[in-house]
């Protein structure tokens, strides 16, 4: 029995289970909440088991159907896949709990409750399939699964703005994935294989490969909303219901970014990518400044968080110019760490914004005046989550930025340090603005009671995001299993 459990390929189950649960919730809409919650409870354990299997018994990547790789599709258990599976499981579990309270069983919009669960479980399964996929065409299919599920979830709110945002997101997703697919076609035409490992070994620095790479990167950059291709994000992320906003900002944007990381470090390391790296870095810098400034100007909490996401995506793209030479491992780890900590922090912020909206009746920041008293818990939780976005010391965000700064010093690109620091200051400014309103000394009437699942799960998530820096050693070690960065990690951990 124990052998059966130990030898299971848990990372494959993490794709099959949510998809199966999605079918079950479609068939039995009445039981959707319980099916969804059970799956959400089970998946973090699957993630732990998958990590344990890889760490202790050196589980190998496997191919679907056990066919050799140019023929079959490889599913990978490297560090990147494992940490993303784990973070998704954690964030997904919290979001599922929150959704129980957010979509109560009996309300006017009966269909919203019915359709949230199958769509969300499809999205979850699609994300997990994407993280473990080692095949470029399979990545296309998983990207489409994720993006169609996101479209549906955005549209769930049902208003005209939400529908317009959903349709715009659909077109953006289609455009991005078709550009990606054209690149895949060119690569297959040249090498007759789509396996990431095999391609990484045989790919050469030719003009055609550069064209394929540019197409694929352009498509993914559009999907991950890097400045100036971010125009669709604020609408899409704010029009959706709160749990959906959290999912989109925390997970969906990262999905495209994970594919980008795999392409950059595993498929195209042989190509001369200096110029594209600098271009992406430059756009990342502009995104940091622009996103933060826009966040500072917003009147609504959710829009503020969405623009903050744009700024944080900018940080993620600093990996590409910084990951060179001896700074390679540092920058790569910084990117992965930022992705994880941003997933936790941003999910907590969006969930809290949903709760604040629920209690204060509006998410206009000015309506928060004096809210610090009655809904102090929510505001404090929001602040805790924001600490990692700003990058305050014990948080994971701090260590990610620390690693970036180290990498910038090691590669002599000091201007990135200036951008990172000013981004931090701006982030502190826009968070402080929210707090300033919340703790104004204004007497407010009573607020409605909110269910506990909408209060405490986000708190847990923000605390995790906040102390992530203290426990960062373990996730970083896991992430480095089979990592594409061969250079040993040079920077010191710890303050």
């Amino acid at each position: 029995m124990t052998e059966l459990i130990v030898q299971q390929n848990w990372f494959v189950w993490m794709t099959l289970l949510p998809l199966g649960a999605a079918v079950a919730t479609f068939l039995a809409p009445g039981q959707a909440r319980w099916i969804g919650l059970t799956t959400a409870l089970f998946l973090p354990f699957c993630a732990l088991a998958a990590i344990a299997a890889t760490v202790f018994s050196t589980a190998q990547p496997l191919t679907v159907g056990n066919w050799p790789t140019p023929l079959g599709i490889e599913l990978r258990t490297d560090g990147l896949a494992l940490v993303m599976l784990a973070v998704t499981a954690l964030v997904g579990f919290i979001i599922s709990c929150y959704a129980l309270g957010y979509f109560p069983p009996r309300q006017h919009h009966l269909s919203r409750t019915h359709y949230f669960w199958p769509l969300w479980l499809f999205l979850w399964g699609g994300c997990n399939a994407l993280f473990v996929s080692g095949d470029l065409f399979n990545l296309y299919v998983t990207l489409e699964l994720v993006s169609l599920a996101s479209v549906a979830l955005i549209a769930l709110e049902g208003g005209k703005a939400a529908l317009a945002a959903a349709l715009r997101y659909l077109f953006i997703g289609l455009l991005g994935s078709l550009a990606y697919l054209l690149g895949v076609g060119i690569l297959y035409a040249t090498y007759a294989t789509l396996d990431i490992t095999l391609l990484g070994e045989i790919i050469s620095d030719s003009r055609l490969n550069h064209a394929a790479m540019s197409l694929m990167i352009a498509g993914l950059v559009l999907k991950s909303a890097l400045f100036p291709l971010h125009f669709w994000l604020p609408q899409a992320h704010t029009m959706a219901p709160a749990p959906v906003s959290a999912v989109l900002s925390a997970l969906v944007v990262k999905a495209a970014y994970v594919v980008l990381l795999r392409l950059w470090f595993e498929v195209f390391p042989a190509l001369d990518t200096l110029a594209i790296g600098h271009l992406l870095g430059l756009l990342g810098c502009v995104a940091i400044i622009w996103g933060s400034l826009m966040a500072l100007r917003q009147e609504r909490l959710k829009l503020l968080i969405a623009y903050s996401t744009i700024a944080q995506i900018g940080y993620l793209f600093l990996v590409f110019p910084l990951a060179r030479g001896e700074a390679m491992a540092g920058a790569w780890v910084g990117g992965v760490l930022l992705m994880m900590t941003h997933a936790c922090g941003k999910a907590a912020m969006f969930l809290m914004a949903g709760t604040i909206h629920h209690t204060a009746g509006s998410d206009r920041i000015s309506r928060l005046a004096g809210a610090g008293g009655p809904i102090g818990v929510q505001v404090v939780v929001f602040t805790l989550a924001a600490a990692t976005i700003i990058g305050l010391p014990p948080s994971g965000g701090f260590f990610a930025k620390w690693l970036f700064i180290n990498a910038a010093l090691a590669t002599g690109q000091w201007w990135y340090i200036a951008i990172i620091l000013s981004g931090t200051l701006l982030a502190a400014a826009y968070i402080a603005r929210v707090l300033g309103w919340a703790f104004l000394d204004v007497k407010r009437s009573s607020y409605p009671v909110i269910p506990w699942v909408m209060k405490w799960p986000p708190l847990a998530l923000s605390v995790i995001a906040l102390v992530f820096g203290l426990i960062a050693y373990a996730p970083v070690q896991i992430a480095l299993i089979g990592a594409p960065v061969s250079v040993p990690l040079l920077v010191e951990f710890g303050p």
Partner: protein
Amino acid sequence: MNTVSLYAGSGIILFSLGLHALLIRRHLLRKILAANIMGSGVFMVFIAMGARGESGVADPVPQAMVLTGIVVSLCFTAVAIVLAVRINKLTGCTTLAVDEESSID
């Protein structure tokens, strides 16, 4: 000038035509058509590349991938049409021009 490069080149032209129209056209149905043309262009590149090699024996892998791709793009088309109809019902518009401020609250 041979058959394969003729078809692959045409595929890329179709892709560009669709891309262009997807970006500049405003009517939703026209955007949907444009995305479909784009997809057909990509599929044509795939199939043309699969048709190389010894005469008559086409590579089944690109064909299988294109079949998958056709299904996926059909799904997107169907969803996009229903979304467009729904938007039209709510706003009376057939375009996506909802600016940020008016959509709030």
